[in-house]
């Protein structure tokens, strides 16, 4: 073999030579299309990434092997060769009967886990007949006001076999109690049931804004569920620390990463403070991230998340237990990226976002339906969303090898940059006294608002292109996409069941159970057992939340 031209050992020197000899003449001939190339988070992207950009990254310490510390390349040594991600489509609308039917349909179509979307009154702790619930019952999710609704919701769905994720936060402990009582009535063993409660109250104050009580008592309720589940429902994930909503509210990828992981650290600190053993409860904490449009930025975010979490659990809490160090996460494609204009284009966006989630090593995935910028998904749209995941899993070949993009100069450099940006935020938040204190100061809220505004301006300048909206828009586009309409009879139906439930229950038992719950809350004891008793007596969600409001008060958002 002929001797090849010797390369300078110094990568930077080689880059410089390439720039002078190859790049500059090319740029003279054809300048680049624009001055700045930016990610969807408005972060600058370099023209080219080379070994010079990864010189500070050490393979053994920073990248390593899948299933090995710091888990940059994934938590399973075999990636998806052993087990595919769980295809978990978020669903819920109208009455518990309707949602129960959708659940059964999705299971028949090959979905392997359920994910419940509750309507706004339920998310806010109000019954279907509350004044504030008018116009909202069954609209954004399924309406659940008492155990009677929950029994219908999971009718004929064996909770010992199917894992169920519940998106519920401020009143999460009550919905968990309802779920456990339904499981009990089915004859399921709590020690065997698995699933996830979102129960991430911090991101409510930061982004999603469905709160009830002030922050500190709300954190106490979260810790109660940690404690209860660790002892009684050991395979259940009592929290899903969520960046999804933080991102949807306008955060950049780095902010999503930083605030979510710092929220996670805050929950661990509160758990430890309450006397829980890190290596008993942290392994059951899970995370939830967004999958937005910028493909590589998203993959880097997931890889950085695992690395940061492993390092922080070691350095802050002294854990060496593998399952404490391993960050497991669910991914959902970015609802905020979907457009009302030319809605079928959303199928393509979702597919690419989902692919980023998979290449980032997600444990479970929800793909949005193309009609979600218009309304809740129709059956047809929901089915295409599921099929999108099945195509990625079965046809693309990306599942054949573990972390296929590992070692890419760009991706490794971006992963490193994400980690550093998150750590910068950690330092600021730590200096404020932790995440609860930072939220009370309005810090993450303001950071996100600023990013949302800058993004909107970038779209309006045309720096960020949205196909079909600020470029390739159509004057007379067809608007024949069928949408799901929830009518007002849902409320009537739900109110009827609520009234029937109230009339046939033992009202003395309900009153006693609610008094007991209040007392438990006042005495700062674990509220879960008393909540379960109240639920079993058919106390309604609204009644239980109202009892806790009497003790804890309500949250009022300061003006930021």
């Amino acid at each position, binding site marked *: 073999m002929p001797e090849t031209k010797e390369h300078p050992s110094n990568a930077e020197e080689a880059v410089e030579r390439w720039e002078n000899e190859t790049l500059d003449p090319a740029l003279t001939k054809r300048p680049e299309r624009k001055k700045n190339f930016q990610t969807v988070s408005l972060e600058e992207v370099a023209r080219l990434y080379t070994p010079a950009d990864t010189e500070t990254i050490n393979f053994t310490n920073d990248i390593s092997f899948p299933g090995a510390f710091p888990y940059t390349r994934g938590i399973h040594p075999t990636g998806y060769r052993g087990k595919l991600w769980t295809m978990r489509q978020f669903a819920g609308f109208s009455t518990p009967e309707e949602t129960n039917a959708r659940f059964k349909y999705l299971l028949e179509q090959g979905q392997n886990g359920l994910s419940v979307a509750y309507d*706004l*009154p339920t*998310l*806010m702790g*109000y019954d279907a007949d509350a004044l*504030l*619930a*008018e*116009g*909202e019952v069954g*609209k*954004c999710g399924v309406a659940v006001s008492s155990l009677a609704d929950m029994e219908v919701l999971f009718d004929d769905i064996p909770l010992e076999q199917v894992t169920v994720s519940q998106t519920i936060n401020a009143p999460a402990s009550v919905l968990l109690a309802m779920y456990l009582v339904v499981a009990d009535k089915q004859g399921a063993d709590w020690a065997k049931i698995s699933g996830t409660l979102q129960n991430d109250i911090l991101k*409510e104050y930061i982004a*999603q*804004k*469905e709160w009830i009580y002030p922050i500190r008592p709300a954190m106490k309720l979260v810790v109660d569920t940690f404690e209860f589940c660790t002892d009684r429902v050991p395979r259940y994930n009592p929290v899903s620390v969520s960046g999804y909503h933080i991102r*949807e*509210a*306008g955060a950049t990828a780095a902010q999503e990463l930083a605030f979510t992981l710092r929220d996670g650290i805050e929950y661990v600190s509160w758990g430890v403070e309450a006397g829980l053993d890190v290596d008993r409860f942290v392994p059951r904490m899970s995370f939830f991230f967004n999958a937005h449009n910028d493909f590589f930025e998203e993959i880097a975010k997931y890889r950085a998340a695992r690395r940061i979490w492993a390092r922080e659990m070691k350095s802050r809490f002294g854990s060496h237990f593998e399952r404490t160090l391993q960050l497991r996460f669910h991914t959902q494609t970015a609802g*905020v990226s979907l*457009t*009302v*204009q030319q809605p079928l284009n959303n199928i393509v966006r979702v597919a690419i976002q989902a692919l980023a989630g998979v290449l980032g090593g997600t444990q479970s995935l929800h793909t949005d339906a193309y009609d979600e*910028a*218009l*309304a*809740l998904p129709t059956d047809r749209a929901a089915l295409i969303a599921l099929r999108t995941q099945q195509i990625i899993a079965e046809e693309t070949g990306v599942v054949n090898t573990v972390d296929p993009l590992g070692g890419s100069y760009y991706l490794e450099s971006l992963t490193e940059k994400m980690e550093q940006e998150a750590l910068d935020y950690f330092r600021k938040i730590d200096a404020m006294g932790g995440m609860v204190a930072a939220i009370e100061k309005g810090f993450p809220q303001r950071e996100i*608002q600023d990013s*949302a*505004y800058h993004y*909107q301006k970038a779209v*309006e300048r045309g720096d960020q292109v*949205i196909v079909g*909206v*600020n470029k390739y828009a159509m004057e007379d586009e067809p*608007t024949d996409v069928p*949408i799901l*309409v*929830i009518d007002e009879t849902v409320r009537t139906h739900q109110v009827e069941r609520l009234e029937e439930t109230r009339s046939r229950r033992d009202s003395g038992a309900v009153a006693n159970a609610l008094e007991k719950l209040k007392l438990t809350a006042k005495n700062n004891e674990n509220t879960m057992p008393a909540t379960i008793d109240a639920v079993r007596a058919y106390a309604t969600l609204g009644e239980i939340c109202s009892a806790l409001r009497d003790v804890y008060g309500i949250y009022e*958002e300061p*003006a930021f």
Partner: protein
Amino acid sequence: MSNRKIRVLVAKPGLDGHDRGAKVIARALRDAGMEVIYTGLRQTPEMIATAALQEDVDAVGVSILSGAHNTLCPRIVQLLREKGLNNCLVLVGGIVPQEDLPKLKQQGVSEIFLPGTSTEDIVKFLQENVKPRE
């Protein structure tokens, strides 16, 4: 027309907490030289109409993403008119299906801005449609 700045109440009725749009709009209107009052979350139509009267606004911008627009918007318009705010514009922004648009306009909503609208279009609409004061 006097030099009075356009005053806008940006309101979030209903239980929905998605306030990204409301906050971006509030800031864009301020940047365009308008005076903006943001109500905060979970305002009833009654609270919104009262705030509009107290703040003497030229327009109310209502942000709704939950699907409750058909219940909330007509009520807001009606209450504003009952309070004598006959010229006060009502703008709606958010997720509203095409088929609901004509009905909302019939019920007195001045304009509905769907996702993808530029903040500049909203500024322009207000500048062109707010009635000059005496």
